[in-house]
């Protein structure tokens, strides 16, 4: 049956004229990949001598540093995420319903804020933790060095694991009890069943999650810069602050993009396979494993993870904020030029909001085209529009600075360029939500509407839009959340007087003014919790 359907759609494609929506979708795909193409051209056009010098001096170290961090963090998030999901979904550990929420909340804390807290606590001698230990006359234990590779890996793991936690939680939830029972009846031990039945069933979901995490780590700037572990993203920043020439930065960006595109390609390939965990009509939830005496260890593992990834950072931010707000001098220190905290909040919210709206708007033609006219071209367009996943913020910024200044000088140094960067970078999230929303819609509805003499636009507005709206809102919440937390592109592209919460948190804490930075950081987290709450409510594991 599948084959005849494929044949039919094939024949239709050959005869039918190119649908109008294809042109719109093509424009979106083009807009999404221009920055990448521009940087790649700039990189290739770089001086051979410069290439040689970069290869000799920086490239090997950057490649090994970056790959080491990506691999370690991906492995760490997978391990932590899957075990947390297993504990809350499959065992009778106490308090697991509340833990499901608490474990997802670190998504509201950008890793660089986590890194600030981590550094403030763990600095040798100057750190809060060592001061406190001295204060109560504890024999000074040798604390691990908070900076460098292990510091960066630790911070990135504890603030990125929720992605994997949510995905594997959903996979654990949807796995059918009957598989597990069959395996047990065939004589497998619980441990064998876990490896031979459960893990293969949840693997595609986890692989996709892990690959997205690794793309995130590739583009992470704040954490690695603060903890002084040099990767491509931070090295590009260093180049931008060096000699009066952007070629070296372009070359490093080109190499970084190639690296990211390879990972993104892998992610595209696993995506198609990620769908064999489906909840059929015979689905029953798997029975819980009784941990017995081990329950307290399970509870402690969950509690410790929440403590480190949410309670401690929030606690410290709250403490600093009260100190900052109580101290009048610090409070007046929150004024930059003639702008204050209110302007930072306003900028953060409106630019992220506009980016969310535009990203979703642009994602609609892609979604309609790829769902209603499946084929090689539409799939290509859909994937091109998702290339943003692979462009780190610093690279988006670099290419937009050069492109806009050259071709759209009137837009240069306006906040709209910042919004453009958010759209290019995060439109993939909107494309994926819109596509999956469109897929759930039967084409019969549109055909009926067309029979009733509605044109394509009327049909879309009156029939499709109301039905895919929840999906579109999911996409916009995702883009909003990501844009709110975005740091490197905002830092580079912001016009004078345009400061967002993320930028303020960064500049203040880079100079060590934690009391000023904390209220802005706290506000950033609180505002992030609103779209995050909306997104989490739709997650499988939070539905009863």
């Amino acid at each position, binding site marked *: 049956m599948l084959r005849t359907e494929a044949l039919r759609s094939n024949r239709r494609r050959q005869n039918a004229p190119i649908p109008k929506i294809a042109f719109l979708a093509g424009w979106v795909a083009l807009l999404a990949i221009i920055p990448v193409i521009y940087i790649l051209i700039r990189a290739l056009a770089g001086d051979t001598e410069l290439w040689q*010098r970069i290869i000799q*001096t*920086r490239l090997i*170290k950057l490649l090994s540093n970056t790959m080491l961090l990506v691999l370690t963090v991906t492995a760490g998030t997978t391990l932590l995420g899957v075990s947390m999901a297993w504990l809350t979904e499959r065992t009778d550990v106490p308090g697991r319903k*509340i833990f499901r*929420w608490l474990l997802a909340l670190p998504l509201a804390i950008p890793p660089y804020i986590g890194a600030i807290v981590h550094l403030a606590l763990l*600095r*040798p*001698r*100057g750190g809060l933790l060592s001061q406190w230990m001295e204060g109560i006359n504890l024999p000074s234990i040798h604390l691990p060095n908070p900076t460098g590779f292990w510091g960066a890996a630790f911070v990135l793991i504890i603030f990125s694991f929720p992605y994997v936690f949510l995905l594997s939680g959903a996979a654990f939830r949807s796995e059918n009890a009957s598989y597990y029972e069959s395996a047990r009846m065939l004589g497998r031990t619980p441990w064998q069943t876990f490896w031979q039945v459960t893990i293969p069933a949840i693997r595609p979901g986890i692989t996709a999650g892990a690959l997205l995490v690794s793309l995130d780590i590739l583009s992470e700037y704040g954490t690695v*810069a*603060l903890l*002084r572990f*040099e990767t491509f993203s931070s090295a590009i*920043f*260093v180049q*931008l*602050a*060096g*000699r*009066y020439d*952007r070629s070296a930065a372009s070359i490093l960006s080109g190499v970084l993009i190639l690296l990211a595109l390879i990972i993104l390609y892998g992610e595209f390939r696993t995506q198609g396979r990620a769908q064999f965990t489906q909840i059929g009509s015979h689905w029953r939830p798997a029975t819980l494993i009784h941990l017995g005496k081990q329950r307290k260890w399970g509870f402690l593992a969950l509690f410790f993870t929440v403590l480190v990834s949410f309670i401690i950072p929030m606690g410290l931010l709250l403490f600093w904020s009260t100190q900052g*707000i109580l101290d009048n001098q610090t409070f007046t*220190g*929150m*004024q*930059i*030029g*003639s*702008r*204050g*905290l*209110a*302007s930072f*909040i306003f900028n953060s919210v409106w630019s992220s909001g506009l980016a969310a709206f535009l990203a979703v708007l642009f994602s609609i033609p892609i979604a309609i085209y790829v769902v209603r006219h499946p084929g090689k071209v539409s799939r290509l367009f859909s994937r091109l529009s998702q290339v943003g996943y692979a462009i780190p913020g610093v690279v988006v910024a670099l290419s937009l*600075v*050069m492109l806009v*200044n050259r071709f759209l*000088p009137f837009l*240069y*140094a306006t906040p709209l360029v910042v919004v453009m960067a958010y759209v290019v970078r995060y439109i993939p999230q909107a494309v994926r939500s819109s596509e999956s929303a469109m897929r759930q819609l039967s084409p019969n509805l549109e055909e009926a509407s067309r029979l009733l003499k509605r044109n394509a636009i009327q049909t879309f507005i009156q029939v499709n839009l109301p039905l895919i709206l929840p999906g579109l809102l999911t996409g916009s919440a995702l883009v909003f959340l990501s844009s709110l937390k975005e740091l490197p592109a905002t*830092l580079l592209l*912001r*016009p*004078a*007087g*345009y400061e967002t919460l993320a930028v303020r948190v960064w*500049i203040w804490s*880079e*100079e*060590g*003014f934690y009391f000023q930075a904390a*209220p802005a950081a706290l*506000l950033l987290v*609180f*505002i992030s*919790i*609103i779209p995050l*709450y909306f997104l989490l409510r739709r997650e499988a594991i939070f539905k009863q």
Partner: protein
Amino acid sequence: MFQKLLPVFVALTLISSGCAGTTSQPDPISFNENGNILSGKLIVYSGRSELLIQPVIAAFQEKYPQLEVLLKSGSNSQLANTLLEEKTNPQADVFITTEVFTAHALSREGIFQPYEPTGYQNLPDAFKADDASWVGLTQRMRVIMYNKDLVSQDELPASMFDLSDPKLKGQIAAAGSTNASMQAQIASMIQLVGQEQTEAWLTGLLENEVTFFGSHSDVRKAVGAGEFELGLVNHYYYYLQLAEGSHVGIIYPDQAPGEMGIISNATTAAIIQGSSNLSAARAFIDFLVSAEGQKIFAEGNYEYPLLTGVALHPDLVPTDGLSLAKIELAQVVDHFDATFDMIDMANLP
């Protein structure tokens, strides 16, 4: 649980945004010295640490409440790059640099326009552009600060070159290659002692496992807290740390006869070619070099004011008591390419 907490978050957000104080209120008309109205926006790019420039901007803002000062602060050289990029499409009115060489290099590229502020003749010639395209604001010294609890008086290094002594391995903090003061120091040393010796000094620092931070504020706090014995900083960072109550000391290096002397530098300000609010930009430069502006730098930041007649902070050692290195501005600027090559080759973080 979340339905209950959500209103609390929203309320908190609103409260904190409400009491945060908004942008300046439009006040009665503000005039500059010539009686012209100053209004609109003044866009300032500043490579200086924000904390060191905000007080003087706040004071200027108070004088001209109708003017809206928009500050973009960032890394000195990154902003210089931005200005070059914006040459055909200028956005900023004024650029404040942390050191002279950037100003000189940008002036060569035609980024600035000349202006002689009020009291120009009272500023030392050494810190003025030949074509008046930039003007020096304050002077500062490259010094070594130390933690008095960790180092005893007789163990102190006396020269920059002592920092590569293996005895001090792992005990030194400095600012990294993105920091303009550090870049300027390397370029100055190339002129003073030659390329070879400078390179040896730099590799010596790296072999000595010096920790390189992004900013000097980090360095001074780390030395103050006792994370490091020594820190390579500009002199005022020592005084700022001292003012926070830390037990720190200062070394003016290379003072013996025949040694290169202390490396000094100056912060500068310049008006951008194509500035769209020239009268405000000029009034701002006037204010920066006026006795009132210079006093803020001297008292609040412990910098050496360049305007004659403005008193030094009482804790500072006067410049005539120091042996200063003889730096040739134009020569040093020519060494900038070599500096960046050296930074690349040494892989300075």
